[in-house]
């Protein structure tokens, strides 16, 4: 009996996978165009005043990126545009540069797993680590192991709270606090400095959430006393939660004039909610952060007012930084990339840059 049922289960699974083969999804007119060089990251500031780091001061050994093991630890599943673009960028660039031994791990949003993932990369003999950290704090065990073996770590998109050049090599990424401030600027502009604003927070406990919230609030307080932040609830960075919270919001607080969504997904969820409530585009001003194609399209359609970009294409910059480091050049402690903004003015023509 168990054998037959096991067989049945296997057959079911096989059938399910097989049907996936003959699946036919909706004809999609807007399949993302090949990224090409569009939307490439540009270095904004390199913390020129801060300390720099050389191979010598780091104390590492020169190695060959192309032949030796290079580890990349991704924090979240490649299931949202940002993570997909990020991993793709790293892999593509590695392929382009002929890096043969790139090992990629994914922590599936579990921080403990990311720690052990990176430790395993080190155990596998990785000579260079590129890490997209799930969290800024708590890297002690990894940093110690890496330091023992003098493995340089480049963290991308999120910072690690530790000592650059001793604990890790450098950080390449956006300034989330700054993103929050720029989103506030956009909000102030589209509301004319007046009105009630709601915030759709990201996942609680996440420092992206913390920074984007703080930047936004600080800027509003500083520049637009006429704007009151009357509502902050988490949308957990997902479209569904963003929609649900917005539905509650617009029903119970009809006076809300603007919504600041801490990522594009929640903003798009908010748009669905507004549509469902019979609102017209632009009736409630939405500003968000990320710069995904769907969100930029949202600006074109008039639903979103502005999107502050958070560029995920770290591959070229990460590997060129590593190469520079190996060549003995000084590396700055932080490399802040320049994120652009999508507004009603430039959305249509910049759509190609969105990811």
């Amino acid at each position, binding site marked *: 009996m168990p054998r037959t049922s096991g067989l049945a289960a296997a057959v*079911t699974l096989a059938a399910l996978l097989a049907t996936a083969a003959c699946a036919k999804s909706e004809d999609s007119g807007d399949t993302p165009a090949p990224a090409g060089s569009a939307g490439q990251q540009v270095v904004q500031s390199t913390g020129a005043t801060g300390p720099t780091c050389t191979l010598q001061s780091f104390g590492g050994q020169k190695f060959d990126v192309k032949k030796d093991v290079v580890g990349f630890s991704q924090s979240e599943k490649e299931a949202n545009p940002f993570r997909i673009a990020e991993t793709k960028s790293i892999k593509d660039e590695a392929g382009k540069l002929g890096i043969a031994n790139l090992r990629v791990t994914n922590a599936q949003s579990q921080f403990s797993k990311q720690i052990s993932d990176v430790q395993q990369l080190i155990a596998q003999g990785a000579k260079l680590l590129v890490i997209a950290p799930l969290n800024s704090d708590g890297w002690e065990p990894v940093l110690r192991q890496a330091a023992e073996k003098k493995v340089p770590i480049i963290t991308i998109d999120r910072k690690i709270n530790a000592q650059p050049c001793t604990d890790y090599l450098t950080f390449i990424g956006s300034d989330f606090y700054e993103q929050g401030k720029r989103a506030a600027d956009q909000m102030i502009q589209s509301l004319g400095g007046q009105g009630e604003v709601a915030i759709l927070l990201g996942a609680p406990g996440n420092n992206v959430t913390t920074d984007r919230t703080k930047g936004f609030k600080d800027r509003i307080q500083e520049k637009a006393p006429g704007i009151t932040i009357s509502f902050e609830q988490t949308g957990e960075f997902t479209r569904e939660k963003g929609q649900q919270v917005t539905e509650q919001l617009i*029903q119970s607080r009809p006076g809300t004039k603007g919504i600041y969504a801490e990522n594009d997904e929640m903003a798009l969820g908010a748009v669905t909610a507004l549509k469902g409530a019979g609102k017209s585009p632009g009736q409630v001003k939405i500003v968000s952060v990320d710069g995904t194609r769907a969100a930029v399209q949202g600006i074109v359609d008039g639903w979103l007012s502005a999107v502050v970009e958070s560029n995920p294409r770290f591959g070229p910059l990460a590997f060129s930084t590593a190469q520079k480091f190996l060549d003995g050049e000084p590396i700055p402690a932080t490399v802040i990339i320049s994120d652009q903004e999508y507004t009603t003015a430039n959305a249509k023509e910049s759509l190609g840059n969105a990811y």
Partner: protein
Amino acid sequence: MAEIAVAPRAWGGRAGLLAWLQEYGVYASVLALLLFNVVFTPHFLEVANFRTQLIQVAPVVITSLGMALVIGTEGIDLSVGSVMALASAMVVLYLGYGAPVAIVAALIAGAAIGAGGGALVAYVGVQPIVATLALLVGVRGLANVLVPQLTEFRNPTLITLGSRSVLGLPLVVIIAAALTVLIGFLVKRTTLGRQLVAVGGNRAASRLSGLPVRRVLVTVYLISGLLAAVAGVLATSRLQASDPTSLGLLMELSAITAVVVGGTPLTGGRVRVLGTVMGALLIQLLQATLIKHNLPQSWTQMVQAVIILAAVYAARGRRA
């Protein structure tokens, strides 16, 4: 003759109050919460508000109905959230053939996963919590493999499903109500319904009485999977996108809570359909209340914990 005398139910006194709470506690809680909101929440007494709450609770209700049946057999189904995600993935995967085909494909997938879990429980004898835990992990992965990222769609039929109203009532809510009636009928009036509570109440006795215990179990898990898939399709159509990564996350806990708060014991042998719906409504109203009053997440979770404990304490069976 030594007959066990059964006293007429006296509704007075402390014991009477407890008995009343056990039977109707969840209704009383929903009512209390409604009253609170009417008094303290602005814009609560609006049609739009009730629409919002009912629309949002519909997928939870539908999933909880299936969960109630499973719990009635002394089982548990942790895979419902992942099945929702899988259904969502199947919908966009097959949308090219038109909405009806896509929906049917999603429902078949949900039923198949449910039946698979049921087979593990019924034929292999794996404990429900473990069998469905494996599915919880694996099926979400599968959904993600099929649809790796959030995918929007424009199929008008599917979008209408999530946003259309019939006679002023949202279609989603009508579907949830219809399924509630259907499951109520199933439990009260059908052979399967009678058999599933018997299986939950005493499996050995059911087997000896010639009940097709294994078939009943597989069917019940299949129904749970099917209902979760329905919920998944509805949630997808409402979102106007398929998002297998986050759709239905932690739905299993909401559904279990709704069922248990509604007065169905985890030990099986009993299914309370209306209680389950009320349980789901209670949680929905609670969350809505906390959101509307802009209380922080930490509050929401702590208050929810207290409500669950209180509701289940009130509803727990009198012990001999």
